[in-house]
């Protein structure tokens, strides 16, 4: 069942003419109760897939917003075990929403990759995304994941060469995550025209769903990217930013987050419609 839930989700979205909205949350920031509420809010306001982040002490691919999120969560004592436990809870309440466990490689490495994947599977999640595990380092684990019916989500970037792109596409599973820009999470994506070319290039090489992440903070960008050919967008820092600025009571931020989630989802839908109808232009 595990991995198929993700495939079915993309299949369903395609059928409904919708781009996928992947929402990324670092679990435990600032506390577990809030994270659960946040994910609930996202799921109920347009998130199709949840990227559930296990906080790591040294998140080298993350910008200041997610760094601070990791710090707060760790300070609050959250552990990988608690994060996986949360995934299990979510699986119970949102049976239809695929969950991707995101974390840096040292977390599964220390737990033991086998064991880690067993926990992921047991929690009912569909796969893992490990930003510091490029395809070369991921290769020893691909078979293992497949056997456990879990996806290892691989990333491509604007800097990825054609040859590497082919290699990554060949190993990809679940979806391909295209990093929209040269930088880290939370960086503002300034122009979407460059990324459109990359989307086309990647789509030409691979039939697997393509999700674009990094720097997407509003419906317009989501729309432009889906219109350009992506099968979905991943949004994370934009959500965290909203509640992080409301340190006093992050719960107050949930309505605004719900609004943004709606907007992103709308962008995912409009984008696909636009693609189907007219040749896309940049905003």
């Amino acid at each position, binding site marked *: 069942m595990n991995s198929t839930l993700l495939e079915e989700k993309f299949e369903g979205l395609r059928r409904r003419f919708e781009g996928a909205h992947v929402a990324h949350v670092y679990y435990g920031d600032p506390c577990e109760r809030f994270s659960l509420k946040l994910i609930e809010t996202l799921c109920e306001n347009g998130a199709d897939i949840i990227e559930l982040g296990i906080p*790591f*002490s*040294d*998140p*080298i*691919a*993350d*910008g*200041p917003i997610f*760094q*601070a999120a990791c*710090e707060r969560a*760790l300070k609050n004592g959250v*552990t*990988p*075990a608690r994060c996986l436990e949360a995934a299990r809870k979510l699986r119970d309440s949102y049976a239809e929403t695929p969950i991707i466990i995101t974390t*840096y*490689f*040292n*977390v599964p*490495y*220390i*737990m033991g990759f086998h064991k880690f994947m067993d926990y992921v599977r047991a929690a009912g999640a569909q796969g893992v995304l490990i*930003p*510091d*595990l*490029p395809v*070369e*380092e991921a290769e020893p684990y691909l078979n293992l994941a497949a056997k456990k019916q879990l996806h290892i989500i*691989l*990333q*491509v*970037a*604007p*800097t*990825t*060469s054609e040859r*590497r792109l082919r290699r*990554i596409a060949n190993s990809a599973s679940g979806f391909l995550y295209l*990093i929209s*820009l*040269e*930088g*880290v999470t939370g*960086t503002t994506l300034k122009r979407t025209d460059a990324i459109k070319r990359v989307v086309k290039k990647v789509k030409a090489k691979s039939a697997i769903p393509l999700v674009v992440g990094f720097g997407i903070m509003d419906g317009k960008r989501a729309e432009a990217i889906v219109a350009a050919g992506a099968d979905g967008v991943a949004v994370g820092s934009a959500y965290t930013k909203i509640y992080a600025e409301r340190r006093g009571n992050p719960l107050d931020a949930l309505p605004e987050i719900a609004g943004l989630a709606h907007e992103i989802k709308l962008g995912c839908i409009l984008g696909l419609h636009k693609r189907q109808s007219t040749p896309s232009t940049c905003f």
Partner: protein
Amino acid sequence: MKRGRYGRYGGMYVGEVLVHALLELEEAFKRIYPTEEFQREFHGLLRDYGGRPTPLYYARNFSKLVGFKVYLKREDLLCGGSHKLNNALGQALLAKKMGKRRLITETAAGQHGLATVMAGNVCGLETEIFMGIKDVQRQASNVKKMVLLGAKVKPVKAGAGVLKDAVSETLREWAACSRTTHYLIGSTVGPHPFPEIVATFQSIIGEELRKQVLEKEGRLPDAIVACGSGGSNALGAFRPFIKEKSVRLYFVEGGGESRGAENSAAAFQLGSPGVLHGGLMMVLQDTWGQIRPSKTRAAGLNYPGRGPEISHLCEVGRVKPCYALDHEVFKAVRMMCRTEGLIPALETAHAVAYVLSNPDEFDPDDVVVINYSGRGDKDVETILRCERELNTP
């Protein structure tokens, strides 16, 4: 051995954005480094700008004190005051030949930052240096030097505001500008190919050492002692001796105040294999794999990871991992000052302290070489302050 691996250690654990830059670097290093032109320019700079060869000094008074022959390989005399310039010159030259316009790096004590801006200026490259906000405060004098030399210094507030956080930040910055910018990493750490490149550039130390000790003693040394965290000065000294089984190799890390988990930087004593900053290595971490900050008064040893190659060499028993505690280190500073008139860097003093505190490891007819990695000008304030603190409990 697998590409980029030392035993199980090493690898290239970075975001996809950076992979191209690492592959480009690997290719460029392989292609450019062996050329006669590069060798000529690199060794020319090492000699005329850096001051190589650095001497191998027979420390007569110190030897008398410990009861066996001790030589100091004088990296403190290298331009900038530590071994760091060997690597900085090599990488800056490489970056220039790769067409890069800018260097970024991180620094804790400031030694590597200084070396980088020096090398950058010589090669006509801009330099930007990331530094934990705490280190910016603690190492104000080196910050001033870097600024005077024209480097941009960026304080890093994330995390604990120390080296580990600055490395993370530099990797992030690099992700955004790797097409025009080279990350001039300062030790044998980070993702492949950095550990190999840095060790290669630093091994000039050991090559000279080998020639010099043969000249002076007619034989190889019995032991080489080096301090380290990432391991660059140690590997630089050790590399040409790894196959010489008769030469004992000692790697001394920062023991901190005591060997307790909260007060130490001794990753070989208290750590385990883990992935940090792109490489698998011995690292201080908790049971969940969260990296634990290191603690030592020697800023240059204050890093929770041990580079992959030194991790491997210790694992297979070729190098003996050791540590020195703060009070031993301060005593070593005092002894080196009094016997030889040399103020060692606090990092370097760890190697000196090990030799002083472990006489049983050495025979009266041993020839021991301490890789004297740097001078202590930067540490005088800390030394005087900490001596006072240690004397008044």
